[in-house]
């Protein structure tokens, strides 16, 4: 995949009072922290490169019957595969004609941020706070995020609220693929961002970014409704800043190796 050099790079700034700090003393690496071979380590966000998109299978368990479930071949997230194959890495900089698509996209994005319809889908506890965010006390409708559509065909934002289990992962990916572009995903709660308190379980997915691209993470167990609204406002900001580049998202663990 082509890497855009023009894209602003977010550098981790380790400064204190204008003076760069000395590199922190690293704790001695334990055996448990070392990947056993180089390819075992997760791909991480380096300073100057984008994450390679990782195509993750939709199906999250192995069928016992080899002929069941499409012959055991897990279906892939197709739009990401297309993105990888095709040369669609448009940086929206192509001379004087630049103005047309960028401005049009900007205007459209301004419209979109004021009309984000979430999908009415809650998985677990966080769904309560998601509902609470839509009710009288914390009124999400003020920001144009209200009509919770029951059908994924009409939704814009998938708020994954609650623990994602391996059994639910398939249906959730299906919901995501049923939503029309442009679409966004908000991971609400600790369980969806990283596995949270059920990280060690045999039946949960440790973070939905393993199976679908995520735009905004809202941590908390569960986050308060204000937290969700703040996350959605961050999403609005993100949509404006991405300026029409909404499909360019990647699937894969966002947790670096050292964490």
């Amino acid at each position, binding site marked *: 995949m082509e890497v855009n050099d023009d894209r602003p790079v977010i550098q981790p700034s380790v400064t204190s009072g204008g003076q760069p700090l000395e590199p922190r003393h690293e704790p001695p690496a*334990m*055996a*448990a*922290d*070392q*990947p*056993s071979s180089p390819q*075992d380590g*997760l791909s991480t966000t380096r300073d100057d490169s984008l994450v390679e998109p*990782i*195509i*993750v*299978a939709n*199906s*999250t*368990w*192995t*069928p*016992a*019957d080899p002929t*069941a479930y499409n012959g*055991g071949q*897990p279906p892939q997230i197709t739009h990401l595969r297309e993105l990888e194959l095709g040369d669609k890495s448009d940086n929206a900089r192509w001379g004087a004609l630049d103005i047309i698509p960028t401005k049009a996209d900007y205007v459209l994005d301004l419209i979109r941020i004021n009309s984000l319809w979430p999908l009415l889908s809650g998985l677990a506890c966080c769904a309560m706070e998601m509902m609470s965010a839509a009710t009288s006390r914390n009124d999400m409708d003020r920001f144009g995020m209200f009509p919770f559509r029951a059908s994924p065909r009409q939704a814009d934002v998938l708020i994954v609220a609650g623990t994602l289990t*391996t*059994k639910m992962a398939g249906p959730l990916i299906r919901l995501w693929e049923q939503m029309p572009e442009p679409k966004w995903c908000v991971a609400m709660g600790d369980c969806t961002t990283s*596995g949270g308190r059920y*990280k*060690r*379980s*045999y*039946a*949960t*997915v*440790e973070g939905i970014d*393993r199976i679908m691209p995520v735009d905004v993470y809202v941590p908390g167990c569960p986050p308060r409704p204000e937290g969700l609204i703040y996350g959605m406002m961050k999403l609005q900001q993100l949509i404006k800043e991405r300026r029409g580049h909404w499909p360019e998202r990647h699937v894969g*663990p966002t947790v670096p190796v050292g964490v």
Partner: protein
Amino acid sequence: MRISPTDVAQVMTLLHDDPEFRFLILSDLCGVDTGSVMQVVYHLWSDATPDWLRVIVDGLPREDPRAPSVTFLWNGAEWAEREAYDMFGIIFEGNRDLRRIYMPPDYQSFPLRKDFLLADDAARSPGQGVRHMEQTFQPAEYRRTPVLRQGLGSDAGHMAPGIQTAELASGEDPAR
């Protein structure tokens, strides 16, 4: 009260129907794996006493645990028995819908058995460098208790190479 699996139907019918006992309500039904044998624990309640009667069906062999179903007395025990089957592999003879209830239908192991270890516990064993979420391979020394882990197993291409799905000792799913 500890009884053997052969007596379950008789004892339960007596407790339920006898006018002296009248244990009309089954409060709970669950399975237990003690590490050596399997047990099924019933808690019964009668309006005669504010306390519960605990009936333990003891001594089910781990390889082929079988117990009679109590669904002929309480319909509601059906799902509880399905749950015990799902989690422990205890087969309730007479339950007409003994399927997996929580795990996917083609899941092969029984999570609440004591030989089913979470990946994290494998990592905690001395001298092993297994990180729990990404790499779940089993070192050679730890093979004696297989890690029966199924989650995220089918897409081993980009993931760590070590995710293994060990078969149950008894072979295949006994219900099929």
